[in-house]
C-alpha cells in the first residue's frame, strides 16, 4: 500500500543566469519516506534541493506540499509551511552559541510553529552530544557535531519535510554511518526526508525512493530496492 503524496514537483526548471541547470523534473515524495537524489557532479542535485527550499525560484513548473502550491513562496514562507532545510556547508550560525542556534530555528516562525519546551526537550534528547554544551559557540563544534546541530535546528519547528543537502559531505568515515543512522532514526519518527547525496552506498541503505539526476534531467525515478538489482548505476551516471 502506498503512502499519501506529501511533496510533488511538476515539470520544474531552474538555473542561474541565462540557462537552466535542471529541467522537466517531476517527482512525487510519499509521506514518511526517505527520498534520495543521486547523480554525478554537476548533475543539478544542489540546484534541485535549493528550488525545493525556496532559495532559488523555479522558472517554470509547480511545487506542492499537501496539494498546496508553494512555488511562488520565498524561503522564509516555505519554512512556515513546514519545510526545513539543512544546507551542505555553513549550516549553523558559527558565531552564535548552540542555544542561540536552536532558539533562532523557530523564533521567527508563526506562533503555531514555534518550538515548545516539550519539543525542545524531545529534540535535545535525540542529539545528546549538543544538549550538554548549549553555551558553546557552534563554530567550535566538529563537522559531525555541526551536522547534528543543524539537524536539531531543523527538527525544532516540527517540520513536515526535512531537506538535506549532502549530509555526509566533509565528514570522516566514522561519522558517515552514524549520520545516516540518525537520519533513519529521525525518519522513523514519521518525518519525511528529501536528501541529496554523493555517498550512494550509504544513501541507498536508508532510502525508500531514488531519483537519479544526470545533466539536469531525470534519468531514473524508482524505489531504492530496484537500484542495483535491475539498474547499473555506472551506466546510469555515465550514460
Amino acid at each position: 500500500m502506498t503512502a499519501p503524496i506529501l511533496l510533488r514537483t511538476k515539470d520544474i526548471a531552474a538555473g542561474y543566469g541565462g540557462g537552466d541547470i535542471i529541467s522537466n523534473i517531476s517527482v512525487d515524495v510519499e509521506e514518511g519516506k526517505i527520498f534520495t537524489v543521486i547523480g554525478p557532479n554537476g548533475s543539478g542535485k544542489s540546484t534541485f534541493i535549493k528550488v525545493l527550499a525556496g532559495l532559488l525560484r523555479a522558472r517554470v513548473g509547480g511545487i506542492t506540499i499537501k496539494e498546496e502550491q508553494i512555488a511562488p513562496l520565498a524561503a522564509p514562507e516555505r519554512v512556515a509551511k513546514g519545510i526545513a532545510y539543512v544546507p551542505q556547508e555553513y549550516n549553523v550560525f558559527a558565531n552564535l552559541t548552540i542555544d542561540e542556534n536552536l532558539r533562532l530555528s523557530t523564533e521567527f516562525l508563526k506562533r503555531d510553529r514555534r518550538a515548545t519546551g516539550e519539543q525542545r526537550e524531545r529534540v535535545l534528547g535525540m542529539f545528546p552530544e549538543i544538549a550538554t554544551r548549549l553555551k558553546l559557540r557552534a563554530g567550535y563544534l566538529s563537522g559531525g557535531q555541526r551536522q547534528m546541530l543543524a539537524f536539531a535546528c531543523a527538527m525544532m519547528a516540527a517540520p513536515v519535510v526535512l531537506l538535506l543537502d549532502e549530509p555526509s559531505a566533509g565528514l570522516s568515515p566514522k561519522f558517515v554511518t552514524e549520520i545516516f543512522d540518525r537520519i533513519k532514526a529521525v525518519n522513523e519518527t514519521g518525518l519525511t526526508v528529501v536528501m541529496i547525496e554523493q555517498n550512494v552506498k550509504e544513501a541507498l541503505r536508508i532510502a525508500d525512493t531514488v531519483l537519479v539526476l544526470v545533466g539536469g534531467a531525470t534519468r531514473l525515478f524508482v524505489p531504492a530496492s530496484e537500484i542495483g538489482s535491475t539498474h547499473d548505476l555506472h551506466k546510469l551516471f555515465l550514460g
Partner: protein
Amino acid sequence: MAAQYILNGFVSGMILALPAVALTLVYGILKFPNFASGAMLTAGAYLALIFNVYFGMSLLWAAIVGSVIFAFIAVGIDQAVFRQLRDRTSITLLVCSMGVSFVLENIARFIFGNGARSYDLAIARPKHFLGLRINNEQIITAVTVIAAMIVVYLILRHTALGRAMRAVADNPSLAAARGIRRESIVRWTWGITGCLTAVAGVLAGMDRAIDPLLGWNYIVSTFAAAILGGLGNPVGAVIGALVVGVVEETSTLFMPPNYRQIVSFAAIALLLILRPQGLFGVARIKK
C-alpha cells in the same frame, strides 16, 4: 596632567563609540562601510538643534525626539537609496554612501547656512575630583554613551531581534532558511544606526560648534575605531573607539592638537598592513 588627557580621551572615545558601533552594525549586516556616518551624525545634531532652539525643548527631550525621528529618516534613506543596490558590491555601496553623505551635508547647509550654531544649554561649572577637571558635558556624554551601549548590548545579546541581526551578519542564506526576513532586519539595523549616530551628533554638538562639516571631525576616527575593533564586531568597535579617543587626546602632549587625526590615519594604515582583520577580528569564526 596626563591623567586629565586620558580622561578627556575616554570621553572623546565615548562619542566615537556610538557611530563606530553604528558603522560596524551596518557593515556586519550589509557588508559595506557606510561613509555617510559622519553626515548622519551632523544631521542628527541639527535635528536636535531644531527641537532645542526653535521649539524650546530641553536638550534631553530634543535629543530623544531628534534621534527617534532620525531613526525613521535612516530607514527612509535605506529604502530610497541602498535597497535599490542591495546586491551590488561593497565598493558600489561605499560610493553610494558618499553620495548620501554629500546630500545630507548640503541639505544642512541649505537650511542652516555655513555658520556655527550651538545648543541652548545652561553653562555649568566644572567639577573637580582627585585633581581632575570634569565638566558637565563630559558627565552627560559618559552617562548617555554607557546607557546606549548597555541598551545595544542587551538588544544584540538577549533579544530575538539581536540574535536575528547576528544571524543575518553570520550567514544570510541560512537565516532566510530559518524564516528570518532579511529586509526586516535591515530596516531595524538602519533604525538603530540612525538613532546611535543622531545621539552621537548631539553629544558632538555639545562638545563643539554645530556646522555642516561637524561629522567630518569624526569620520576618520570612527573608521579607525571600527577597523581597530574588527569591522562587524560591535564590542570591538567600543574598545577601538576608547583606544582611539585616548591615543588621539594624549598625542596632543607631543604634537599640535590640529594634527591629532594623524594618529587615526596611522592606526588605520598600520592595522591594514599588519592585522587587516582588526585587533578583535580573529575572534570571529569564518566557517
